[in-house]
């Protein structure tokens, strides 16, 4: 399968993607697209980013085989791509450093970001400190409560955190507020969007900054086991860690690509964030993709124990991969994710982010389906330090 013409010049992945934004933002999106294109072709830019990854992020991230955890996954070999070991504790830093360099390239001095779990906000605040940029992070009030540790981290790093009290007070509303800021301050400000959603060029650009995950992992898996994995698994919020690890495997059609959405209380209850599994095509936040929406096209609030997956949209490339059948998307409930969270902690000594625990829960299911000969590559997108309070409440551990 060729993916050369995907996306097209204006960011369409089949019927998905594109630009649905106020005209006021078109200039900035075109400027960003040009900056990204020229950076891709600029060896100096690529060398600077590679140097940052080697000396700051901690790339390449390692591959860890989870043998004791594998006993709970049908005996399949479980290989964890350790994005949790990156500086700031998740994959988010890959995209943030790339966009921060582009911000400098465009001569802008201020970045704004939205954040759900706080990981993207922390990574943005980190890059702002490193490059001397002003940083404002929009975060739903509900998320500032459940991820309070990350709010403090952002403040320590010198960022301003603005709690958003509109709507569901979660990630979707934080994005609305960031877009309003951007429309107003677009001359001086770069919107450092944290996932593969939003208007073109964000889905493509953010993917390009994350595809290093899959490129490294492919080499590492080949080195360790001498063949490609049977399946690559990742959790899906907006879809950035998933597209990052999937992308290099898209042409390898024998490798299954499986994304795990947040099933919340169960897709059948309506209280979930499983956008592809439980949503329908529509437009949200500047792009056409799957959306949780009602009969009037109003966005339905999502629900998940995981702040980073609690989003009623998803990146357009995932919508496309789903429709053409190249990737599969399934839902994992809060309870399944928390079981996997507990299990990885107790069997491997690795506390995963609750987001990533959705992919681990997926591995427990897929491993049983494929059996002990299977090799599963899982993106461990983040570490669980930020989730200790939520987990303590969930498991009844007194604090």
């Amino acid at each position, binding site marked *: 399968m060729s993916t050369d013409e995907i996306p097209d010049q204006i960011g369409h992945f089949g019927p998905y993607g*594109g630009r649905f934004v106020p005209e006021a933002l078109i*200039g900035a999106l075109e400027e960003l697209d040009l900056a990204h294109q020229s950076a891709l072709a600029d060896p100096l830019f690529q060398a600077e980013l590679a140097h940052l990854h080697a000396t700051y992020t901690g790339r390449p991230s390692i591959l860890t085989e989870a043998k004791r955890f594998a006993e709970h996954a049908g005996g399949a070999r479980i290989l964890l791509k350790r994005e949790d070991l990156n500086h700031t504790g998740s994959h988010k830093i890959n995209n943030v450093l790339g966009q921060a360099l582009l911000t400098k390239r465009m001569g802008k001095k201020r970045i704004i970001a939205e954040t759900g779990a706080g990981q993207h906000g922390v990574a943005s605040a980190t890059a702002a400190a490193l490059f001397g940029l002003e940083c404002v992070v929009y975060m739903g009030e509900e998320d500032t409560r459940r991820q309070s540790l990350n709010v403090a981290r952002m403040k320590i790093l010198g960022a301003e955190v603005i709690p958003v009290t509109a709507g569901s007070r979660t990630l979707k509303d934080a994005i609305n507020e960031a877009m309003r800021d951007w429309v*107003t301050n677009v*001359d001086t400000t770069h919107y450092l969007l944290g996932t593969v959603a939003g208007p073109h060029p964000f889905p493509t650009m953010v993917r390009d900054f994350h595809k290093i995950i899959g490129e490294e992992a492919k080499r590492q898996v080949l080195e360790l086991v001498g063949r490609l994995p049977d399946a690559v698994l990742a959790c899906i919020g907006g879809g950035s860690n998933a597209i990052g690890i999937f992308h290099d495997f898209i042409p390898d059609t024998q490798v299954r690509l499986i994304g795990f959405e947040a099933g919340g209380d169960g897709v059948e209850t309506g209280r979930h964030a499983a956008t592809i599994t439980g949503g329908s095509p529509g437009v949200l936040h500047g792009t056409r993709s799957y959306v949780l929406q009602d*009969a009037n096209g109003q966005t339905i609030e999502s629900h998940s124990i995981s702040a980073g997956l609690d989003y009623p949209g998803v990146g357009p490339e995932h919508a496309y991969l789903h429709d053409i059948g190249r990737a599969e998307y399934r839902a994992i409930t809060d309870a399944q994710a928390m079981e996997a969270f507990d299990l990885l902690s107790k069997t491997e000594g690795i506390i995963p982010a609750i987001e990533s625990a959705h992919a681990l829960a997926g591995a427990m299911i897929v491993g049983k389906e494929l059996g002990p000969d299977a090799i599963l590559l899982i993106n461990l997108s983040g570490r669980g330090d930020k989730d200790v309070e939520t987990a303590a409440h969930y498991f009844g551990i007194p604090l």
Partner: protein
Amino acid sequence: MNTPLDRVLVKAKSENRAALIAYIPAGFPSIEGCKRVIKVLADSGVDALEIGFPYSDPVMDGPTIQEAADISLRAGTGAAEVFETVKFAHEAGLPTVVMTYWNPIEKFGVEAFAKEMARNGGSGVITPDLTIEESREWKSATTSAGINTIFVVAPSTAEKRLGDVTAQCSGFVYAASLMGVTGARTTISSGAKDLVARIRTTTQTPVAVGLGVSTREQAKDVAGFADGVIVGSAFIKILLNAGDEETGLKEVSELARELALGVREGR
């Protein structure tokens, strides 16, 4: 095309003045209350009406319109209520357009939405987040239905793009007076006048200015260079702050009469 909106803009021009265009979300302050507001606007010198389709994620709107949209959504406003309101306004004698984010149109069905607008006497639709690149299906649906397509241009719209956008507009070109979201401002940015001048080099279509206008003085200024003056948040603020509906309607009427004087003083 010759919609009621087209005709009222021609009439205003023949009177050497700008048209006054008022914005109110359907279903605000309530589904029936909205109709009473429309009646008052029609009787107080407003020339044309924009009815907002309330949306859950209004990224172009400031706090005032967000609050009104929330109230309207909680009252259960959907496409049926929007069209019902269009019909009411049309029957009250006001040329009427709907202003809506794109997703409600896509969900309703692009062709069906355009048809339903026409069937209820609507003149056209303003689509603030539909870029011209994504508008092909919409253009063909609205052409068949015979309604106006109004796109928004911004001070940041580049020279080489401006003509492409205005070429897709009919009824009027919506010139956003500033870089920002909706909401009353104490001053109208000088950028508005420049933008209107730039737009006029690309098209004969009338140009209306929106974002921030709230007073007679501002309406007069804008009427000096634009064909239409759009006022939204100022009316909504009155209705949000009014102790009771009667007071609100009285103040809306007073403001509309003042603004109607303003659009006649500009030239």
